[in-house]
């Protein structure tokens, strides 16, 4: 509704003094419940407790320890094998191989992506190799690796490298490519080139992608290792966690099978929360690249 004759009323002007001192911020502390709920670790622990209780209740109602042992039975087997040292020894063997393969994979990925970021033919090579080998399951290479490197850690490290390399290289390469043109120009404005340009501009700028690649690579490596040990675990003389699971399955010690799987999960959670989350917190979160 408009009225052609309408006029806004005349009002006096005013200028105010802004109070700067007495204006205190009114604060109200959060309640204890809200404070606890704000801690991520507590929320996750609560979730884990709920999941464990669901497991326990379901297993008890099923009442078939050979098919699906209870949570408490699994924990019991887990603790007793920790006590005897068997489980810890197996974990140690697995972790050793895993870190070797993982580290070698990371180094190779760094070489490939460094080459790819410097030359166009390097980019083509990396893109062709990743599209060829990334979809190829590492475990499919194990028989071949056994022929090439014999029954030993060499074969396992080989398949681990294969599982880590392409995932990390692909993510790092994508990260390099998505570094903003402005940052690239800033880098070359400083006179940086070659390796220093990669180290000082590309790697930090692409760190969110690199971290994602490292996480995926880590998960792939675990899967590959457990699978390889399940199939050919005894090959390396003394098997790791996968072999532990396989052995106990043969003995129908199902709670111990669960304890083995449980250990894999625990290690996964620990690495994610202790290593990767802290790495995220002190790098990309602090830099404002991730909220």
């Amino acid at each position: 509704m408009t009225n052609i004759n309408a006029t806004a009323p005349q009002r006096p002007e005013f200028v105010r003094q802004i109070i700067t001192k007495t204006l205190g911020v009114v604060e109200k502390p959060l309640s204890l419940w809200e404070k606890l709920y704000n801690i991520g670790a507590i929320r996750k622990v609560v979730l884990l407790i709920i999941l464990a209780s669901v497991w326990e209740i379901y297993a008890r109602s099923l009442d078939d320890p050979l098919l699906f042992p209870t949570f408490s039975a699994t924990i019991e087997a887990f603790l007793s094998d920790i006590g005897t040292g068997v489980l810890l020894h197996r974990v140690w063997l697995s972790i050793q191989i895993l870190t070797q393969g993982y580290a070698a994979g990371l180094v190779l990925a760094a070489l490939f992506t460094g080459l790819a970021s410097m030359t166009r033919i390097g980019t083509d090579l990396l893109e062709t190799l990743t599209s060829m080998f990334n979809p190829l399951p590492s475990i499919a290479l194990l028989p071949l690796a056994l022929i090439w490197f014999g029954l030993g850690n060499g074969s396992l490290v080989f398949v681990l490298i294969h599982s880590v390399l392409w995932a990390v290289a692909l993510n790092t390469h994508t990260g390099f490519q998505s570094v903003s043109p402005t940052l690239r120009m800033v880098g070359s404005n400083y006179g940086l080139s070659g390796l220093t340009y990669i180290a000082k501009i590309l790697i930090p700028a692409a760190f969110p992608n690199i971290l994602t690649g490292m996480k995926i690579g880590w998960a792939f490596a675990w899967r590959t290792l457990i699978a390889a040990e399940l199939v050919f675990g005894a090959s390396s003389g003394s098997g790791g966690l996968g072999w532990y699971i396989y052995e106990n399955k043969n003995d129908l010690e199902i709670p111990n099978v669960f304890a083995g799987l449980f250990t894999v999960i625990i290690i996964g959670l620990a690495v994610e929360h202790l290593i990767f989350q802290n790495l995220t917190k002190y790098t990309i979160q602090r830099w404002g690249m991730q909220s």
Partner: protein
Amino acid sequence: MTDKSAMNPIIDSGITIPAGEKASPILDVSGVTIQYKTTSFIVTATYRIDFQVYTADRFVILGPSGCGKSTLLKAVGGYVRPTEGELRLKGRAIDRPGPDRMMVFQEFDQLLPWKTVKQNVMFPLTSSGKLLGKAAEEQAMHYIDKVNLSQFADSYPHTLSGGMKQRVAIARGMAMEPDILLMDEPFASLDALTRQKMQEELLRLWDETHFTVLFVTHSIPEAVRIGSRILLLSPHPGQVKAELNSDGTDWAIREARMLSERIHDILFTDVVEESDHD
């Protein structure tokens, strides 16, 4: 279409330069044509541009969008090679980017997010080997102080406002004490109030150190306020239309009209009325 003077009739601004001030230019751009290829065309961004920048100039390149002014600045920065002509900095031909021509970009993401304000300002100093350690830190803090950001020296860029980020970028450029500071529409992404404040601050900084700056903008008021010498480019492709002096006040001394109006007329009317009367 090859004779430049036939295409660009030089209009006398009426201001006479006192004789005897024949210093050699710090930046000499002569006959620069820049072309770039798209998938189906070769586009000429600028055509046979000539201009000279002298020490302590506040040289502004002004023109509507599409006049190739940013491309021209990138050529000075060493990112783009001209297809014809030459760019010389202190007599040396420009063939690659380098820290003797520090660049301030329009984008807010020009600061390295993984470095604090102080580290950002220090980084070009140390990586070019100009200053190291304590000396670099002192130099950085000196210029951070100049842009009034001392209390944010240890903050990461993502915690700063747009205007503060641009001030850090300016401090970073100035701390290198380059031969020439290149600014590519550095205030274009800022809100009007902040932009005005930044312009004042840039002039204050210039008053303190008299650095040489080459400044690209599409805003006539900004050019008039910032520049001591204004190069006007025509669009598609960019050609030099005029070079004017400005004292920053926008008051016409001889022509009884504002400098900004005059610039507007030159840029946006093809037939420029003669203004030779004194």
